[in-house]
């Protein structure tokens, strides 16, 4: 019975939620601004 593993998992779920929420909000903004979600079509950063 290891209490640490559940603490690790819960902590990581919280961390993962935060990161995922932020990345998803960026993705939604990208879709709104450029109308596409395909990385092949998003190319303003070449160079």
């Amino acid at each position, binding site marked *: 019975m*290891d209490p*640490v*593993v559940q603490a*690790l998992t819960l*902590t*990581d779920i919280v*961390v993962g939620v*935060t*990161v995922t929420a*932020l*990345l998803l909000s*960026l*993705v939604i*903004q*990208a879709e709104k*601004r*450029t109308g596409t979600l395909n*990385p*092949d079509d*998003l*190319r*303003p*950063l*070449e*160079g």
Partner: protein
Amino acid sequence: MVEAVAEAVGAATTGVCAALLVRAGRGPLVYWFSGWHPRRGVALGISFAIDRLGAGMATMVAALVTAALVFSVRYFEEIEGHRFHILTLVFMGAMVGFALTGDLFNMFVWFELMSVAGYGLTGTEIEMPAPLQGALNFGILNSIGGFMILWGIGLVYARTGALNLAQIGNALAGRRPDGLVVMAFTLILAGLFVKASVVPFHFWLPDAHAVAPTPVCVLFSGVMVELALYGAARVYWTAFDGAMSPYAVGLSKVLVGFGALTALVGAVMCFAQQHLKRLLALSTVSHIGLFLVGVGVLNHVGLAGVAVYVVGHGLAKASLFMCAGIVLHRLGGIDEEQLRGLGRSIPAAGVMLALGGLALAEVPPFGTALGHTLIDDGAATAGFGWTPWLFGLVAAVTGGAVLRAAGRVFLGLGPREPARFASERLGEVTERETQEAEGRTPFVMLAPAAVLLAGALAVGVLPGLSGRVERAAAEFEDRTGYAERVLQGRTAPAPFVPVEPPSLGGLLSGLASGAGAAALAGFALFRTRLLPNRFRRRTSATLGRGLYLFRSLQSGHVGDYTAWLVVGLAALGGLFAMAFR
């Protein structure tokens, strides 16, 4: 009002971390959260284990954040809500926590918090498509890195049942590192290398720097990537050294190899850039390569050199980014070619840019020269006698790129560059980033740049610094002493370390690399007059085509970057497997 509060918090944090640095001189400070002290060598609680190098990193973080906050007061057009200041303070907190912690999972939590704040800061100008994509590239790659670290931590925990770095070290010590330990080490290191922008995990860095506002770039290049390398060193020396020290020779070859590759790729790409912020970002990549070489030689002199170089480079790079920010603010552009000659109205920034370029070129008495000398001495002891050439070359190329940019922007020198190297596409972002300029550069923008540059100089001339840093590095590398202090609370006597003063030859070679940088810059600016026309046209056609192909690797496409990440992970893992056979 908000700015004042944020700056006060930054200054207070700097003071606290400096106090920790002084206190840690008597031995590492250990604090157990909520009083969960270890019993019989088993640590359930989370600890902060603060030694001199950790406290030094934390002080550097807080100082640069304060400087960036001061710089940003007149820099931004308008900040909605107080988003920028909040994210910056969270970013600072996460980085300080990362530097001070003694627990592996806690390190991961700070890492993720640092990353999230970083993604938010990169996407400050979220209305434009380029920052959005830069933030996404940064976010996706670094999240994969974070996931790899978590995976490695899971493997370590499964093997050792411990998350405290000292306890993991004790559990792994003395046993031959088998496949699981090597995999865990690979994953943790690869994840940290993504954040540290080691080649081939580095592709996110130029994109993020090109689109992030200048105060954020100051922090990314000045402390964030160096902190990731610090994390790698910390994890190795506390947790894995007990098991891996018999294989140190092979391990150091792998690490030095990655470092050299990073340094060379970064330097070449840096010289081929016209976008000032990307140029500086790629010089950060190449310097990270140099730091990895210094860490990779796995001895205390090399590590001391890295510590000094990180401080000197961080201060100089921060100052350089602030100069680029002043250029952007006053002149409205960031492309070297577009700005040709316009810099004559802001001579102060030009002088600082040139001095910063000399600092990058490891010219004494900047701190970078001292750092480079110590790393070369450490590398020579470990059998890598060729590092002075690598350091000299990279210093000359990156310093030369900055000097060339300074010459073109502030003096109007140099021939017109072919359009394929231009960066106009990003012009739309940069105009909006900063507010309308008045006739004079604001004092709050010039002062931090000047103070930081002076700091980079001061690091190189402080008497007795190299001796103290070498002792601190030896303490950092002393796994058993660390474990005893953290788990038993006993301060072991400091390991006896013969302190070697930096060799004079190393310092003088800094003058050579400075001259090389000036020569390269001069060559780039005056090549139409120096070379015969036909020869120049033919070589520039082939060289230009080769450079263009190389630069097109930086495609902006997150799928390409991820593919390179996988290649890097496989290479790192494969090489480690061979080293630990």
